[in-house]
């Protein structure tokens, strides 16, 4: 199993999770479409280790992260109480996406375990692995909002 296989699994996982938890349609965009650049963003991260070692990041602009949080918890934007609530929501969403992928990986013989989620937030940052990795970045559009999902796998 390689990074391209994981990318294909993510193309199914993200829409499934968004549809079930948020009643939102997340549409994968063509690979050659220009990727958005976010200013203030929230990035959820869940790693996996076993037959494959890697990590999946889910990048959203802060505004979309707040919208996602409100949808998940049935709250209006005013009712969202601080960054922690948003961080937790994005972390859990990432957890569900990677869990979905991990289940399919295990069924195909690539057993692994997941890490607990972590979240990074800020502006104008990118995350770069220290050692060489195979990487794919997927772009989704969801109700005029943009979402990037990056998968990194140790070769």
């Amino acid at each position: 199993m390689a990074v391209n296989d994981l990318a294909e699994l993510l193309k199914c996982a993200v829409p499934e999770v968004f549809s079930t938890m948020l009643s939102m349609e997340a549409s994968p965009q063509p690979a050659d479409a220009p990727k958005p650049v976010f200013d203030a963003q929230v990035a959820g991260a869940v790693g996996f280790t076993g037959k494959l070692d890697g990590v999946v990041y889910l990048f959203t602009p802060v505004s979309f992260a707040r919208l996602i949080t409100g949808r998940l918890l049935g709250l209006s934007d005013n009712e969202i109480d601080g960054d922690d609530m948003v961080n937790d929501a994005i972390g859990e969403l990432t957890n569900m996406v990677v869990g979905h992928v991990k289940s399919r990986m295990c069924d195909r013989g690539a057993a692994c375990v997941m890490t607990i989620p972590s979240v990074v937030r800020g502006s104008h940052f990118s995350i770069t692995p220290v050692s060489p990795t195979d990487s794919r970045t997927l772009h989704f559009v969801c109700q005029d909002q943009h979402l990037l999902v990056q998968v990194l796998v140790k070769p």
Partner: protein
Amino acid sequence: MGVKILTVDDSKTIRLIVARAFKTFDTEILEASNGVEGLAVASREKPDIILLDFTMPVMDGMEMLGKLKSNTDLKSIPVVMLTAEAGRENVTKIAKMGVRDYIVKPFKEELVVERVGRIVELMPRGATVAKIRRYDDPLNLLLVDDKPAILEQLRTGLADTPWTITSAEQVNLSLIERITQNPPDLILASLSLPSDAACTLFQKIRNTIKTQSLPIFGLSVKTETDEQVRAQQLGFTGIVTKPIDFNDLKAKITRALNLDTTYKYFERQANVLVIKVPTVCTSVATNEIAANLRLQAKEAVDAGIDKLVMDISRPKSVDVTMIELGLRVVRLCQELSLKYIFVGSEPICRECINFAETKDWRFANSIEEAVGQLGGGTRVSPPKEPVAG
């Protein structure tokens, strides 16, 4: 009191989603963010059901589940596992852990409610509480078993109750219609019916709104643990093993239907609360008395009663469970400042003098005498002397 649901998940998001799912039901939602907290809350609150995340820091779901199952006070609490991982291997691992059910994330709130509703009865918030039935009220029990001898056994074993037992030998459309149109109060279904018919019946019953809360017990030979585990994981109310212990069966039916048994053991006479210990004081009877003791005593005190008589004149002898019950009564009376006395036969009195725990118990010959003794002053009369010779 509502159903207590404990959610153990490191994600506050999930805990909030679960709380919201049950907002319209009469529930009390408890939360913990890891297995260590979860165990502490479970020990303190004794929830009716636990929703347990698989992957958590500090202590994960698997470890917490292991500790729950090895704790005699907590092991019977049903657990539903929440997991983001639905792979075959993971599902098999979870099934073997003794959980009642599992829910894969992502999930719709309705699914959580439906799965929990299969295990515990969920009442809408604000719904009128149904009139509580007594143990001596008529009930309709349906036996689904292809062995006629079991029906005979049931009728004989429950002959001392006013309960009616009807039967069916197989699960078919006609039976389902019969149950739907005229639901019995409880179903006993043999797990050895061919083609997993009992499980099929269970699922059909649970999927019909009119019968979704109907208690269904699986009947199974004691050694057939595989089918029993499967039935429990499916959500059967409980298992009744063959050969049938009828005291145990009556206790299970009493619990499943929340039958009021207090009238068998507690009675108010004028300004006295009388506890009547039955002739055959089984562990079931002792447990029922103990379970209702505090509430009955508090209600009596609230109604102005300040005297208690524990009548142990019916049993032929005193045993450890009866002594423990008596000690519990004494402690409670001291706590609530109730004047108390025991009623017992001569042999019982003589036996009690021989035990350190009971030698100071005061006895009267009858309830009338006991009431007279309690009503006369601030202290009860000195202990009876044993008859010489």
